[in-house]
C-alpha cells in the first residue's frame, strides 16, 4: 500500500435543497430545508424510548447517515432508562471518511487477491462444475417459482374467502328454522299479489287481473304463525307465515267430462261421486303456502268454468235442452249418447276421505276435454284484455270495440253477428266431444270390418295433424298381392262434428251421417265394387278384352246394401269369356262361356251350315268359386284366366 500513489477523490456536496417537483417547462421547485427546530423534531422521532440500555440487538433498520449512529450509541451506553445522550460528532465528514476507508480496504484486498490469482502459483480460479443448463431454462425456472409463489398467495386469499362463505352458509342453515317472517313474506310476494289493508295483509288469488269477470273476491289473508314453542325443538317444516284461504275454496277440484252410452235414470241425476283423483304432487322445493294457494286458485278456476257452462246451458236454446242438476250438466249430443260435465270438489275434511273411491274407467273421463276447457276459459280471459277490447272509454261496457260504433252507424243484424262470436264455452265443448266420439266410432267401424273381412283388405291411414273439429283418414281397399294393379277404390274420409264426408277417387262426394251403420254399408258396397274393378284391371294386364262393365246392374236379385256390379271379359283369342257378378250381400257369381264346339249337348240344327259358326262362344257354365284354388278373389281370377288362355306351343 505504501508504494501506491494516492488516489484523488473528488467530493461534492449534494444539492442543498431537494427537488419537490419538476414543472412542465422544466423549472424545479425545491423543498425548503428543515429549520433547526424541525431538524431536532425529526431526530427526536427516531429515538425509540421503549428500548432500555441493556438491549444489544438494537441496530435500527438501514443506516441512514447522521442520526442513526447517535441514537444507537446513545442507547447502548446509557445505564438509566429513558435518558438519551447525544454524542456530538467530531466533524461532519466522519462517517464519509469511515465508509471510504472501508471501501478502500475492500478494494485493496480484492486487488491483492486478483494479482495472486493471476500468477496461478498459490491460488487458481476454477469454475464450479455443474450441469450445462440451457440458458433459456433458468429464466423459466425462475418464472415458475415466482408463479408458484404468487398463485399460492392468491390461493390463500381465495381459501380464506371460501372459508368465510361456508361459515356463513352453515350459519344460515342453522338459522333457517328461526327465519324471519319478513323474509318469508318477501318470498310470498314474489309469487302472489299482496296489499296491506289496515293492519291485515291480504292477497289476491283470482284471475281478475288476467281478464276474468267472475265475481268471486278471491282474497286470502296472510297471518303470522306464532304458535311456536321455543323450548321444544323446531319442527322441520316450520314456516313463520301461514295463509288463510276463503272457506269455499278449500280442498281441490277438477272438472270431469265423460260420455256414456246409455241414457240415465232421472233419479240418478246429480249423484256424481265426488272425488277420486289424488292431490297433484307439488314441486318438492315449494313451501306449503304455495301448494295451498295454487290448489285454491285451481278450485276457483274450476268454479268459474262450471258457472260459465251452466249459465250458457240455461240461456242458450238448443233442440235438446241441457239439464243442469247440482254440480252436473248433462246434454245429449247424439241420440242414445249422453255427455256429462261435472265439477268434482272435495274439501280436506276427514269425513270425505273415508268415502270409498271408485276407479274411473278408461272411457269414462275424457282428460283431453277437461284440458280444453281450461284452455278455452283462458282464451276467454285473454279476449277481455286484448287490444280489441282495451283500452275502452270509461262509459262503455266491455265488448268488441266495433260494437260501440254499431249504434251510430246503424249496423243491422248480420253485421252485429259478424262482430260478436256467437259460440259459447258449452257449445264449443259439446262440438269437441261430438267430434271425439264420431272419430272413435268411425275408427272402431273400420277396424271391425278390417278384422272381419279378409278379402279384399281394408287399410286406414289416419292423418297426424287434426283439428279439434275435424280429422281425416284415407281408406284403401286392396287385394293382397295385387296392390299395384287394383287400386281404384281410395276413399278420403273427413270426419267432422256431426257428419262424415267421403271423397271418392273418382270425384264423388258423399255425406254420411253419424250412424255407424251407414259407414259400414258404404264400405261393404265399395268392397264389392272393388272386386269387379280388380277384374277389369286384371283383364288389362292379362290381355283380355272387357266386353261390358257396370257398377250398378239392374238384373238379378236386389241387394239390401248398395248395388251389385258386373263385368264380362273375353279372352285374347276370343274363345272364352268370363262373366262376373259381385254384390255386397249375394257374393260373387262367375260364369265362363265356352265355344260351341266344346259343348256336347247343343242341339244340332240345319240352320248353321258352315262349320265356322261352331267356333263362336256358346253357352255359359258356372264356376264353383269356393272350390277354386287361390288365396283371394283376384288370384283365383288370374288362375282362371290363365287356364283359359291356351299357351302357344
Amino acid at each position, binding site marked *: 500500500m505504501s508504494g501506491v500513489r494516492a488516489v484523488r477523490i473528488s467530493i461534492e456536496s449534494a444539492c442543498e435543497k431537494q427537488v419537490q417537483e419538476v414543472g412542465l417547462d422544466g423549472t424545479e421547485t425545491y423543498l425548503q430545508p428543515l429549520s433547526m427546530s424541525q431538524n431536532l423534531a425529526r431526530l427526536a422521532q427516531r429515538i425509540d424510548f421503549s428500548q432500555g440500555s441493556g438491549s444489544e440487538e438494537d441496530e435500527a433498520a438501514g443506516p441512514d447517515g447522521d442520526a442513526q449512529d447517535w441514537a444507537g450509541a446513545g442507547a447502548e451506553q446509557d445505564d438509566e432508562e429513558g435518558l438519551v445522550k447525544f454524542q456530538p460528532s467530531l466533524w461532519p465528514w466522519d462517517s464519509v471518511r469511515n465508509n471510504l476507508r472501508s471501501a478502500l480496504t475492500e478494494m485493496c484486498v480484492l486487488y491483492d487477491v486478483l494479482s495472486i490469482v493471476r500468477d496461478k502459483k498459490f491460488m487458481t480460479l476454477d469454475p464450479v462444475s455443474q450441469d450445462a443448463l440451457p440458458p433459456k431454462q433458468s429464466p423459466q425456472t425462475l418464472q415458475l417459482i415466482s408463479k408458484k409463489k404468487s398463485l399460492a398467495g392468491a390461493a390463500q386469499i381465495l381459501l380464506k374467502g371460501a372459508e368465510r362463505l361456508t361459515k356463513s352458509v352453515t350459519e344460515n342453515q342453522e338459522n333457517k328454522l328461526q327465519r324471519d317472517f319478513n323474509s318469508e313474506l318477501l318470498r310470498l310476494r314474489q309469487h302472489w299479489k299482496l296489499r296491506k289493508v289496515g293492519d291485515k295483509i291480504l292477497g289476491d288469488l283470482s284471475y281478475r287481473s288476467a281478464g276474468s269477470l267472475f265475481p268471486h273476491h278471491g282474497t286470502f289473508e296472510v297471518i303470522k304463525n306464532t304458535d311456536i314453542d321455543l323450548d321444544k325443538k323446531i319442527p322441520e317444516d316450520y314456516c313463520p307465515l301461514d295463509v288463510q284461504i276463503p272457506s269455499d275454496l278449500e280442498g281441490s277440484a277438477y272438472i270431469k267430462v265423460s260420455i256414456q252410452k246409455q241414457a240415465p235414470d232421472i233419479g240418478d241425476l246429480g249423484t256424481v261421486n265426488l272425488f277420486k283423483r289424488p292431490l297433484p304432487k307439488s314441486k318438492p322445493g315449494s313451501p306449503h303456502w304455495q301448494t295451498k294457494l295454487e290448489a285454491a286458485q285451481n278450485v276457483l278456476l274450476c268454479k268459474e268454468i262450471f258457472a260459465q257452462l251452466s249459465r250458457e246451458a240455461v240461456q242458450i236454446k238448443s233442440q235438446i235442452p241441457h239439464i243442469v242438476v247440482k254440480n252436473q250438466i248433462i246434454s245429449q249430443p247424439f241420440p242414445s249418447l249422453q255427455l256429462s260435465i261435472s265439477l268434482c270438489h272435495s274439501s280436506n275434511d276427514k269425513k270425505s276421505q273415508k268415502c270409498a273411491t271408485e276407479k274411473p274407467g278408461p272411457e269414462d273421463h275424457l282428460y283431453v276435454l277437461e284440458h280444453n276447457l281450461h284452455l278455452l276459459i283462458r282464451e276467454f280471459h285473454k279476449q277481455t284484455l286484448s287490444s280489441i277490447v282495451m283500452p275502452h272509454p270509461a262509459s262503455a261496457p266491455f265488448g268488441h270495440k266495433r260494437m260501440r260504433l*254499431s*249504434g251510430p252507424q246503424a249496423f243491422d243484424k248480420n253485421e252485429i253477428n259478424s262482430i260478436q262470436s256467437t259460440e259459447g264455452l258449452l257449445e264449443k265443448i259439446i262440438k269437441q266431444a261430438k267430434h271425439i266420439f264420431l272419430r272413435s266410432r268411425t275408427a272402431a267401424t273400420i277396424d271391425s270390418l278390417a278384422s272381419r273381412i279378409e278379402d279384399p283388405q281394408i287399410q286406414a291411414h289416419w292423418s297426424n295433424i287434426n283439428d279439434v273439429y275435424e280429422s281425416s283418414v284415407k281408406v284403401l281397399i286392396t287385394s293382397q298381392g295385387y296392390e299395384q294393379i287394383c287400386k281404384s277404390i281410395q276413399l278420403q274420409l273427413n270426419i267432422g262434428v256431426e257428419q262424415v264426408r267421403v271423397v271418392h277417387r273418382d270425384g264423388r262426394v258423399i255425406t254420411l251421417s253419424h250412424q255407424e251403420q251407414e259407414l259400414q254399408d258404404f264400405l261393404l258396397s265399395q268392397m264389392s265394387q272393388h272386386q269387379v274393378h280388380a277384374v277389369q284391371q286384371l283383364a288389362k294386364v292379362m290381355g283380355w278384352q272387357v266386353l261390358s262393365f257396370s257398377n250398378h246392374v239392374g238384373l238379378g236379385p236386389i241387394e239390401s246394401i248398395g248395388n251389385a256390379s258386373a263385368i264380362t271379359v273375353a279372352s285374347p283369342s276370343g274363345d272364352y269369356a268370363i262373366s262376373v257378378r259381385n254384390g255386397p250381400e249375394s257374393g260373387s257369381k262367375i260364369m265362363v262361356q265356352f265355344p260351341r264346339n266344346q259343348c256336347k249337348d247343343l242341339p244340332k240344327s240345319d240352320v248353321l251350315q258352315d262349320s265356322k259358326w261352331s267356333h263362336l262362344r256358346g253357352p255359359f257354365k258356372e264356376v264353383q268359386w269356393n272350390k277354386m284354388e287361390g288365396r283371394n278373389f283376384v288370384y283365383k281370377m288370374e288362375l282362371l284366366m290363365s287356364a283359359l288362355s291356351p299357351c302357344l306351343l
Partner: protein
Amino acid sequence: MYVMHNSEYPLSCFALFENGPCLIADTNFDVLMVKLKGFFQSAKASKIETRGTRYQYCDFLVKVGTVTMGPSARGISVEVEYGPCVVASDCWSLLLEFLQSFLGSHTPGPPTVFGNRHDAVYGPADTMIQYMELFNKIRKQQQVPVAGIR
C-alpha cells in the same frame, strides 16, 4: 223532432226533423232524452208503431206490418228492400216491377227521398224518413183506416 226505433238496426236510435237532419245514435239516446225532459215537451204522447213479419226472398226483404196508434189499428205498411244496391236511382225500376207483381194497382210512385239526389248512396236514415212521412200521413187521416204503402 221525432225519435224512432227500427228492429232492423237493433242497437240504434234515430232522431228526425221534418225536412231536416237525421241523427243516428246509440240506444243511450233515449236515456238522454229522458234526462232532458225539463227542456222540451213531448208532443201528444202518441206513439205509432208498425209490427209484423219479415220475409226474405233472395235479395229482397219484404216487411208487412200493421200500423197501430195506441190501441187502434190504423193501416198496413209494406216495406220492400233490395239488398245489393245502394244507389237509389239504379234499382227503382226493379223495385217497381217487384212491387207490381203483388201489389198490382196499388203500386206507389218513387219516394220523395229519391227525388232530390238521384245518385247519392241510400242509407238507413232514408228509410226512417220514409217511415216518418208515412206515419204523419196516417196520423192526419183520422178514423178511416187506409192502406198506406211505402
